[in-house]
């Protein structure tokens, strides 16, 4: 910094501390600029992008059945062996999972199961608050997966939020604020 400044301003700039002044100007700009901190979890919550890989969810078809055909490809491709699938045959001859368990404590959220799935069934959604005080609850079952939050359609913004009133460890967006979030990236100063 200093050297380039000396080159740019020559010895006159050096005499009058052009480099120090440039530094002061920069910090002055930041001092009166916007802060980038998320006031998470009790005032604001970040809604992740569509590409975010969070808590898994299971797609269902129009009849309310899960899309999964229990081919066990996800379980095979999983690098940490955290998916357990046990298939069974329904009355109309479809192959469906009887058990579909994911151990979130082992999962590394790589998304390979999503890529391997031929039936558009297992996906990774927007939920990222999976902290718990009981490790057993980290093994999620089929019904948890079908009810888990989908991929965010309003991702990439900060919403006004508050802590879950039920005393859970979650932050929930305030009701009626789905459209008033701020574009967080507008607060970031872009370098030259």
């Amino acid at each position: 910094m200093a050297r380039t400044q000396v080159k740019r301003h020559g010895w006159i700039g050096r005499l009058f501390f052009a480099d120090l002044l440039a530094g002061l100007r920069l910090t002055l700009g930041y001092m009166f600029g916007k802060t980038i901190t998320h006031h998470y979890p009790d005032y604001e919550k970040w809604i992740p992008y569509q590409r975010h890989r969070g808590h898994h969810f299971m797609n269902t078809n129009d009849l309310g059945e899960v899309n999964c055909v229990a081919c066990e490809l996800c379980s095979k491709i999983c690098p940490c062996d955290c998916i357990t699938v046990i298939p069974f045959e329904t009355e109309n001859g479809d192959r469906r999972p009887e058990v579909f368990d994911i151990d979130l404590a082992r999962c590394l959220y790589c998304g390979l199961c999503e890529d391997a799935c031929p039936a558009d069934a297992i996906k990774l959604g927007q939920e990222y608050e999976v902290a718990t005080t009981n490790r057993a609850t980290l093994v999620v079952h089929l019904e948890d997966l079908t009810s888990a939050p989908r991929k965010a359609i309003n991702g990439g913004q900060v919403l006004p939020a508050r802590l879950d009133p039920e005393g859970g460890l979650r932050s929930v967006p305030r009701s009626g604020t789905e459209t008033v979030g701020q574009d967080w990236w507008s607060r970031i100063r872009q370098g030259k």
Partner: protein
Amino acid sequence: METVLDLLPLLVKMAIIVGVLLLLPLPLTWLERKIAAHIQQRPGPMRVGWHGLLQPLADAIKLLTKEDHIPAQADRMLFAIAPVVALVPPFVVFVAIPFGDPIQVFGTEVTLSLSNLNVGLLFILAVSGIGVFGTILAGWASNSKYAVLGSLRSIAQMISYEIPMGFSVIGVVMLANSMQLTQIVAAQQGLWNIVVQPIGFFVFFVAGLAEAQRIPFDLPEAEGDLGAGYHTEYSGIRFSLFMLAEYLVVVVLAFLNVLLFFGGWLGGPAFLPAVVWLLLKVGFFIWVFMWLRFTFPRYRYDQLMTIGWKVLLPLSLLNIMVSGFLML
């Protein structure tokens, strides 16, 4: 009876100054943290009170209730004395600092200073020089390598920078023909000293930063390389005394910069009382000190000495010479 009545305004002024000075570091810590945070795009303290305004109170309670620990091998008496020695000089300096022209209260004239010394400037420089003893004693008494290194650095730094600091104000004294601070301010009627003494101001400002041990000259307490420097071993209330002293030195410096170079209470808009205008200027300087702190990195030890002896000292001597020729 008359002597008591004469003493009354003095006592009131003393109580006000001591009270304000003891409480002043609380908002200043808040301000410093806010400025640091916003320069780094953080909001800083936000949770205790509105925008974290009560955070300093919480911090103070924490510091006062902490264990006051003295290391086993420390020199216990010096260890206990050092924070007080560091704290007293910045308070004593305020004896000589004037806050404005005399005002009329209930028909009697009240001077806005505890004592209008005719060698006020000399007194201030001398007393603030004593402050370094707190640092030295703290470093020595702690019996800790970090603390000793910090106080050694601080001795060298203080000796190097008091000289250009003393020389840089000679130009101001020459212009005012007096060392009385009220006279110095009065001499700036119409033209502030910053215009005629830019080099003197620069030297005084930089040397003052070094005297206050602020970044970029905070080698005595360099967090990065010395733990916390001379107050590494201090905790609880004794540590808070050091903090108090540090902030008060900054306030003193801001006052001196304003009084010597920025016209003191002169030149304000008509609707503002002179004292308020003075305090506004002082606040601006405090803000500048904090702004500098979170902009610049720390100088290396040899760079510190080079700046002190090879740049600031010749500059201050040159300043005296040039002002002398110009006045002839």
